[in-house]
């Protein structure tokens, strides 16, 4: 999180935090473990009322933000959700809402945005990797599989990248489309649901294409940047929370007649974790600003954040498990809930290695 928030942002964070703790906290996560949706629709709609789904959408389309850049407000929500590993499709809904706000047609906006903004409907983004498509009159026929897709089986609308004749597009497909199947998957996170989404000759009309005719590579890249920015913010929320829990625990727990926090071997590890935490918060914030302000190197900054935060978050939380001792590997303790989310965030929307390769490619050019 930014060290300095505006008054509006501080109020927003405070409201969001109190709501999350009351409605979407750890007890809710444990309760929803076997729930097919993985979130409470009523709580999600209330979150939407707080602004969780409207920050990336322009005011004329029913959205609005607290600061000049809605993404800088939205990362505050993501970070707070990380602190309680909250349920709810924050990433996918906002990626789709953002794209529609940017380049959606009036009809697409009217058909999809009100439901997303009210929290009554959900959208899924099938990722940056395109599925194959062939032309069919003015429209396309899609064939291929996307997996794992967050909220894929919960979504009313699916945004999917397609490649047709060498050109990239993004198309919006309704959940009920013939030939579309979203099969729920089991996964690491207790409440973040993923699905395998199959397109078996799914026919989509020309007006399902989001954005101007031509190459959608830039919009797909922007969607990826937004998704990764939110993911990084959520992970830093996890890291900050787990770090705080661990420092407190070390102070409370005694062995050999002294607090664990008095042992230099442990103090030095905690100091190293603190460096990793601050560095992660810093690059997550820088990435959010780069994407929000459209910096030309935003893709590099986001990939640096993904490459840095992913492995360090899991390493840091695992170290905190170690510092907690045996209780840290029990189901009863909350640590594993944080570890699950950090691990999921590390590997989705590109692994750290894939993002490192993006950084290398911007220095060396792509591999032959």
């Amino acid at each position: 999180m930014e060290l300095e928030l505006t008054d509006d942002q501080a109020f927003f964070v405070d409201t969001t935090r109190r709501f999350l703790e009351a409605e979407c906290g750890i007890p809710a996560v444990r309760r929803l473990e076997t729930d097919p949706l993985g979130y409470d629709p009523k709580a999600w709609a209330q979150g939407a009322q707080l602004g969780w789904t409207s920050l990336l959408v322009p005011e004329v389309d029913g959205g609005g933000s607290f600061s000049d850049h809605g993404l800088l407000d939205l990362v505050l929500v993501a970070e707070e959700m990380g602190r309680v590993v909250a349920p709810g499709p924050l990433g996918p809904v906002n990626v789709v809402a953002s794209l529609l706000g940017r380049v959606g047609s009036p009809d697409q906006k009217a058909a999809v945005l009100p439901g997303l903004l009210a929290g009554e409907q959900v959208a899924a983004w099938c990722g940056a990797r395109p599925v194959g498509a062939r032309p069919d009159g003015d429209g396309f026929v899609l064939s291929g599989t996307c997996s794992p897709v967050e909220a894929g089986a919960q979504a009313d609308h699916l945004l999917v990248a397609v490649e047709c004749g060498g050109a990239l597009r993004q198309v919006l497909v309704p959940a009920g489309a013939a030939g579309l199947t979203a099969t729920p998957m089991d996964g690491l996170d207790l409440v973040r649901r993923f699905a395998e989404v199959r397109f078996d000759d799914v026919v989509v009309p020309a007006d399902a294409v989001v954005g101007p005719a031509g190459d959608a590579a830039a919009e797909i890249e922007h969607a990826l940047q937004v998704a990764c920015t939110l993911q990084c913010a959520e992970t830093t929320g996890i890291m900050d929370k787990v770090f705080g829990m661990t420092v407190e625990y070390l102070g409370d727990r005694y062995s050999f007649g002294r607090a664990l926090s008095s042992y230099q071997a442990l103090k030095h590890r905690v100091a190293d974790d603190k460096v990793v935490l601050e560095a992660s918060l810093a690059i997550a914030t820088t990435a959010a600003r780069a994407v929000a302000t459209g910096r030309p190197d935003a893709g590099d900054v986001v990939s640096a954040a993904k490459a840095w935060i992913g492995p360090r978050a899991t390493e840091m939380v695992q170290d905190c498990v170690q510092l907690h001792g045996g209780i840290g590997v029990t189901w009863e303790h909350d640590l594993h809930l944080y570890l699950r989310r950090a691990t999921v965030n590390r590997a989705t929307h590109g692994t750290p290695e894939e993002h490192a390769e993006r950084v290398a490619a911007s220095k060396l050019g792509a591999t032959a």
Partner: protein
Amino acid sequence: MTRDIVGHGGPAGGQPADIEPVDAFRGRLRAWLPGNLPPEPDGAIVRTDERWAHERVLQRQLWDGGFAGVRVPREYGGLGLTEEHRRAFDEEAAGYDLPFSFNVPTLGILAATLIDAGTHEQKLRHLPAILRGEELWVQFLSEPSGGSDLAGCLTRADRDGDVFVLNGSKIWSSGAYVADYAMCLARTNWDVPKHRGLTMFIVEIHQPGVTVEQIRQTDGTTEFCQEFFDDVPIPVSAVIGEVDDGWSVANRLLVHERMAVGGGSPYTAGRTSKHEVGDDGAELVDLIRRRGLEGDPHARLLLAEATVRSMVGGALIERLTAGMARGTLPGSAGSVMKLYGAESVIRRAEIGLELSGEDAVAWPVGGETTGARLGMHSLGRQGAALGGGSNEIQRNIISERLLGMPREAAADRDIAYRDVRRSGR
């Protein structure tokens, strides 16, 4: 202890509010720079005797042009302007050759400490001279008996009428052989616990009784020095702060040190570090191309890792220096920056070595090859984890002062320093 540095914004040193608007200042500077400062030389700047002399001239140029000491109070020769003006200076002057060596430690650490803790007379005498390029300063803190236990210093200053008489030795002062003055921490009272018997002095370096020896380091450089003091008389007027209260002065100095090393000092002009090897990745890119490793996935990942480390480091410095300047983070947060920076130097050196392969082992006679530089650089890499407080000390500071964990047990607390057990006795 949180607000222990000059805040951003607002005129420094209680100057009147009728200050030059930032845009006007910027415009004046932009017009002045091209005709008065040369462009920054390419590549790493090697601090030869000529370079040191050249930087004194550059500092004098800034003074004559009316641009020296943007945030130093006006009554001491500075411009008394705000952090915004200083940032404008850094932005406009980027790419010009600046007196970089004046930044650390002279301006960022020692002038800063003098501004905080010096007497009016001391400031009047030295601050304008520093800004005119006439005085380079160094710090005499570490001793051969140990650097981490700074307050355990053995160099002594014994009162004799109007003077203190200095005896002992200091070490790891960078560039002392070309410098003019030092801030020197010495023991003035052996009958009290260690922190309470120290005094900070201003010491003129080039005078009888002071011997400066350059230390040859593993990479062949000789910038670090050791000094020996043999009955050096120090006037009472050269005491900074109170007699026996040198530890609080030293602590202010250390706060400024961590700020300045991290690039967040209010008093520096332009960047504060020499180019680190492999810092911007350009050197590694050259190496990869020359060795034909562009398609090697492992080499690409190493390059990405070095690049990401630099980007994260920049973000971290920005976050922490802003927080410290605003007072939302304590000065001890500087240790986070310091530790990250040292680990980056080490990791980059390792990456450089790995990408160099045998190029780091042997090269054509007299060849200034990248492999030669990276190989040599890797030998001295631990210097970054030792100088300015070792990584271990930074970890103590982070855990104890920043996170409030219990302090290490110490066998010298509340004991007269003469009774404390020391190495070799």
